[in-house]
């Protein structure tokens, strides 16, 4: 009675586990073959910038989804943080005198606003037991409405800053390069790396998985489940705020409608990356791959000249398939692990 999982099972398990990677490779190969300009440095740089934005949202979203929650407010938070930055760079009038803040403070405040909205989400979900879907749907509207109120519905143009005000340099956040790679891509990579370590190697990360796996059991084990859930929404909010800043910096302007339906892209990336919407299973790395799949798919279809309407349909099909396969994986995984480990546990005697 040794732990010999059937080879067919083992192959199926691997294919399912690595499905996002396989999908990415397949898409890259397909678009390279079909479009001569796809695999050029210029296009890859643009692609990387697109991916960086949805990946950043997906990283924050992954933490939330791992606890079994969801964050619909990220797109609105991105819009709000851009507006906050726009407002502060354009100048704030206090007692008839217009004040200008240094860029580092502008960025910090905009991130804090995002974290604050996230904290509201966390409070609603963890303390007042509001369903995550409803709580973040509410803050989705509140954040978007606040962005419109602050801007009066208008765009803040010319965010390059003025030397005399000492607030130049904001666009660099979205437009500069380091070692030939766009700064936003670097930021996403660094943040994703930190997030991956936090998720996999720290007590906080393990608590997230525990809460998602069985919240009651986690609480009985002495884990502060409310705090764990709350913090994940703060992380997601801060990531979303950074996305808003990057977009505003890239465009050198802030528009109150920025980020609409971004939350759906982020959720799609997380799910494609193999994170279960029920919580407890998934990884940051998976979400990165998921974001890449979505980004490559979108850009590739544009380059092939596929109609915009078809693009939307195809994206929907891919997401639905991904979730269906996810269900299949959890069943196969259970069978596989049972055969693999049940044997070992017995033999160990």
């Amino acid at each position, binding site marked *: 009675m040794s732990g010999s999982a059937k080879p067919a099972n083992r192959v199926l398990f691997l294919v399912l586990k690595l499905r996002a990677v396989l999908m990415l490779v397949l898409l890259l190969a397909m678009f390279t073959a079909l479009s001569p300009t796809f695999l050029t440095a210029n296009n890859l740089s643009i692609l990387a910038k697109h991916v960086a934005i949805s990946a950043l949202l997906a990283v924050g979203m992954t933490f939330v989804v791992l606890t079994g929650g969801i964050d619909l407010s990220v797109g609105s938070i991105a819009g709000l943080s851009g507006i906050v930055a726009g407002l502060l760079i354009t100048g704030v009038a206090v007692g008839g005198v217009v004040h200008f803040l240094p860029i580092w403070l502008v960025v910090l405040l905009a991130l804090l606003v995002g974290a604050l909205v996230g904290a509201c989400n966390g409070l609603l979900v963890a303390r007042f037991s509001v369903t995550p879907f409803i709580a973040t749907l509410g803050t989705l509207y509140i954040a978007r409405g606040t962005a419109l109120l602050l801007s009066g519905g208008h765009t803040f143009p010319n965010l390059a800053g003025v030397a005399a005000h000492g607030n130049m340099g904001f666009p660099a956040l979205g437009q500069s390069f380091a070692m030939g790679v766009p700064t936003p891509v670097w930021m996403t990579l660094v943040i994703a790396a930190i997030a991956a370590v936090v998720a996999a190697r720290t007590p906080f990360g393990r608590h997230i998985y525990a809460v998602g796996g*069985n919240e009651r059991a986690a609480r009985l084990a002495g884990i502060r489940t409310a705090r764990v859930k709350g913090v994940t929404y703060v992380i997601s909010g801060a990531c979303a705020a950074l996305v808003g800043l990057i977009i505003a910096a890239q465009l050198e302007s802030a528009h109150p409608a920025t980020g609409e339906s971004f939350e759906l892209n982020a959720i799609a990336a997380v799910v494609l990356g193999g994170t279960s919407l029920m919580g407890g299973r998934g990884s940051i790395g998976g979400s990165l791959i998921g974001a890449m799949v979505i980004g490559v798919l979108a850009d590739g279809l544009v380059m092939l000249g596929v109609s915009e309407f078809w693009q939307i349909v195809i994206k929907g099909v891919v997401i639905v398939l991904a979730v269906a396969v996810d269900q299949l994986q959890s069943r196969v995984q259970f069978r596989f692990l049972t055969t693999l480990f049940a044997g070992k546990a017995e*033999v160990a*005697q």
Partner: protein
Amino acid sequence: MSDDLILETRGILKQYPGLTALNRVDYRVRRNAVNVLIGENGAGKSTLMRILAGVEAPDSGEILLNGSAISLRSPREAAAHGIAIVHQELAVLPNLDLAENVFAGRELTRSALIDRTTEDRRTVSALLRLGKPMEAKTPAAALSLGRRQLVELARSLAHGASLLILDEPTSALSLAEAETLFGVLAELKAGGMTIIYISHRLHELLHLGDHFTVLRSGCVVGEGARGEVDRKWIVERMSGKAYGELSACAGATVGESLLSIRDLCVAPMRDDEAALQGLSVELRRGEILGVYGLLGSGRTELMETLAGARRMTSGTVTLQGKRLRLKDVASTVEAGMVLVPEDRQRDGLIPELSIRENIALSSMGGVLIDRKRQAAETEKLARELSIAAPDLERPITALSGGNQQKALLARCLMRSPMVLLLDEPTRGVDVGAKEEIYRILRRLAGDGLSIVFTSSEIEETRMLATRTLVLCQGRIAAELTAAETTDEALFSAASPHVVQTRDGVEVTV
């Protein structure tokens, strides 16, 4: 406070809507001993233990540890005082591996990162101490119930608990696994551990216990040391009756065959469920058939399948010669077979509705509800089952556990079924109401209703069943007449027999 007490509670009061779970309980726990806590379902044992584990807070009263008052507002605080609990419903995180489970909430870190190496080492050594070496990276989902429990024990050991609470630890274990556990407990006691042990199995308690405390309806009704305590002492205090009164029910007269189950097979839906493998049984009119088995034996699965809440893979079920497809609950109820589910709060009651509406819930047909007729019918049933409520328009939550259970019974009876299925008919019901429910069920059987019930309580199975079916790992292990139904017979039939093969592998036969 004398020195041999490690923990003492004074005047612990805990009330739930419609139920006083603990009524000023003074409970004493002796140091370095196995403290047995006994009581029927609903006596308040689990509530008391949840309070000691910091999961629930008492309404009033104090807890003294080594003579000084402590507060236990969270599992974390309880753990800091060295109190660890292995819950009746195991609190294992299925998506994490063993080391992650053992250190959940108390991770070991080195420079802010988890120290996996040390966690693995200490997990393996704790499991080794429990006599069941397993790999630290085994996912918890791949373990049997018995092994999951060992993981919880390992968790307590790894965190240096000095007071270990075990709430019905053997309800899920086979005889062999239970024997292993007893060995482990003896060793832990020798190592200075204090143990609080809760179980329904009298022979197990008498074998293990050093000190005994009996709870009844939220009060301590007896304390005794090993030597003063025997089976009679326990049963009398648990039930509040002299030993002789607790006779099994008289052999009822049973009629012709009503329900016939042939080669019933059901696949498990989750990893902790049993597969039913070829069950065949006849049920006669007016018969009360008990189904006894350990957790994971398939008893709940059998009840749910018969109720139509679970698909069977093969086999036939015929009621009065008519074959039932058991496709869904509605058509099974239509055919004359109804289930009173085990978990009243979760699967039974609709708390927002009145007592009347709860009773009439399954019997609302047609286009408009005939309120007058419905009221008359519910009134009649409520009287027959003596549901103690001044007014049936009151919310169902105003009733005590026993009366809620009777209301559910009334709901099923309103459909005038031929077969009544009861999953744990007296769970969370106080002793008086229990007796009453038994009387009602016997009367119904006398009127020609056939009843199938499962119970984890031996006394209940003995008192109620005219015939008992013992399940073990999804098969019928024994069929006992009322006279044959004894503790020993039930246990030995319900336990899988485990043998070791030459290469040391455990095989169940």
